[in-house]
């Protein structure tokens, strides 16, 4: 059972690594709060015009805004998690060293990313959310069970986010330079996760498509759990389904990629 301890240590390392940069965390809290305030006012104007848009009332919509800010870095919606480092290691050839290690590449980075996500949720998520709840009228559930379903959805969301970014990083085996693909991933993440607008406000077929894509697991799903707007079991199944599919794809790609690894230079 040594490997369980190994991955736990890696996860703790991921947590500590992000916890080290206190000023950066504070700066992030400030930025998330400013964006939360700007977005909150635009949502107020929107819901003034169309009350009950997307099945939310105004305080639901405001809760959604602040949840989005709280989960933005937890879910790595805009990237800059482990994937940039992994891409760099693939580009420079350091990946060859990683492949010799007695640890699995996918699990290693998963453990690291879980540690990161936990820190981001506590460090960069909680404070803006509390400030938002203080400044605006949010609808927060009283039932601990609702909060529990929310947390489960957050964990599943992090898994989906991780497994997608692992795929993105592995693409560097073929592309060498990861700037283009990470930007594409970032774009899809911001738009399809519901960062710009709740996915249930997206009209018609576009709405149906984005709600079926994996990014719906990142912010929309946890938000719907907290707001009691969707059935927990169906939501969990949706998130877990995408997590399994993407992790499987990552496994497959990892096998193909490591067979064709060409170490340049040394």
């Amino acid at each position, binding site marked *: 059972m040594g490997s369980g301890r190994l991955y736990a240590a890696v996860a703790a390392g991921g947590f500590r690594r992000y916890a080290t*940069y206190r*000023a*950066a965390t*504070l*700066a*992030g809290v*400030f*930025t998330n709060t*400013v*964006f939360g*305030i*700007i977005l909150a*006012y*635009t949502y*107020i*104007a*929107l819901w003034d*015009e*169309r009350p009950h*848009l997307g099945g939310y009332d105004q305080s639901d919509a405001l809760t959604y805004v602040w949840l989005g800010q709280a989960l933005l870095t937890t879910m790595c919606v805009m990237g800059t998690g482990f994937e940039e480092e992994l891409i760099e290691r693939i580009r420079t050839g350091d990946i060859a060293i990683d492949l010799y290690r007695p640890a699995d590449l996918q699990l290693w980075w998963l453990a690291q990313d879980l540690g990161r996500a936990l820190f981001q949720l506590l460090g960069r998520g909680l404070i803006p959310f509390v400030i938002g709840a203080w400044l605006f009228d949010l609808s927060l559930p009283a039932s601990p069970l609702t909060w529990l379903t929310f947390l489960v959805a957050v964990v599943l969301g992090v898994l989906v986010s991780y497994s997608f970014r692992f795929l993105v990083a592995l693409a560097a085996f073929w*592309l*060498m*330079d990861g*700037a*283009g*693909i990470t*930007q*594409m991933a*970032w*774009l899809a993440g*911001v*738009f399809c996760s519901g960062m*710009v*607008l709740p996915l249930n*406000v*997206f*009209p018609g077929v576009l709405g149906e498509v984005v709600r079926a894509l994996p990014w719906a697991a990142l912010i929309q799903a946890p938000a719907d759990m907290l707001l009691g707007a969707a059935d927990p079991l169906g939501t969990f199944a949706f998130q877990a389904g995408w997590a399994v599919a993407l992790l499987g794809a990552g496994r497959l790609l990892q096998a193909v990629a490591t067979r064709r690894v060409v170490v340049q230079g040394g």
Partner: protein
Amino acid sequence: MVDGVRTYRMIAAMWIRSTMAYRASFVMTTIGNFAATGLDFLAIVLMFSQIDRLGGYSLPEIAFLYGLSAIAFGTADLVVGSMDRLGRRVRDGTLDTLLVRPAPVLAQVAADRFALRRLGRITQGLLVLGYALLALDDVHWTVLKVLLVPVMVISGGAIFCAVFVGGAAFQFVARDASEVQNAFTYGGATLLQYPPGLFAQDLVRGVTFVFPLAFVNWLPALYVLGRPYPLDLPEWVAFLPPLVAAGCCALAGLAWRAGLRSYRSTGS
């Protein structure tokens, strides 16, 4: 000054050549930059698929505010957007390399990793502004209003440049707090995409008198649109942007000097 411009041009040209080495990536990132900023506007269009007016403003009116904000911010981002890396350079000590070179540090930092792909954002802003100008049918264009549009874009760009430089000066002190800058740059650009009436009066007061982002587009654009000003300001404030921009740039320059002078190398 001449020295600075020359340095800037040479470093920028070098980075352009280096980006072109990965041409596929360059094309992808430029399209990405274009699309990423386009998503903001797509969000507004999606909102307008559900409503006719937001805070009393029509889609073309908001597109007008949006286009001006995007072009002004995009220009500053292209010219000095790399300055947010200064904190990293202070942390890892690579700023020292720039200090020993016989060229202005500000120009070196500003041109560092010059990213031509940022033209994507400007292009997107120009397209939205073009749409707004075609679709705005209630505006009675006068010579003054027509002239005000390019003045807004240039002064707005200069104001955002000052924010970037001022933010970089702050990083001499704060080191790894570069994200604070994002609140003022990206946050400011987002704020200005919407009419001022949406926001709390104190917030509008703050970005008018303390941190004068309102001069980038709000005040002059409301004159063009014939809309009432926030905070009961007089009509002539619409013509202040060049003055405000000059003031901001001067202040940012002073802040930069003070920051650079306070810099002590990490010694590593």
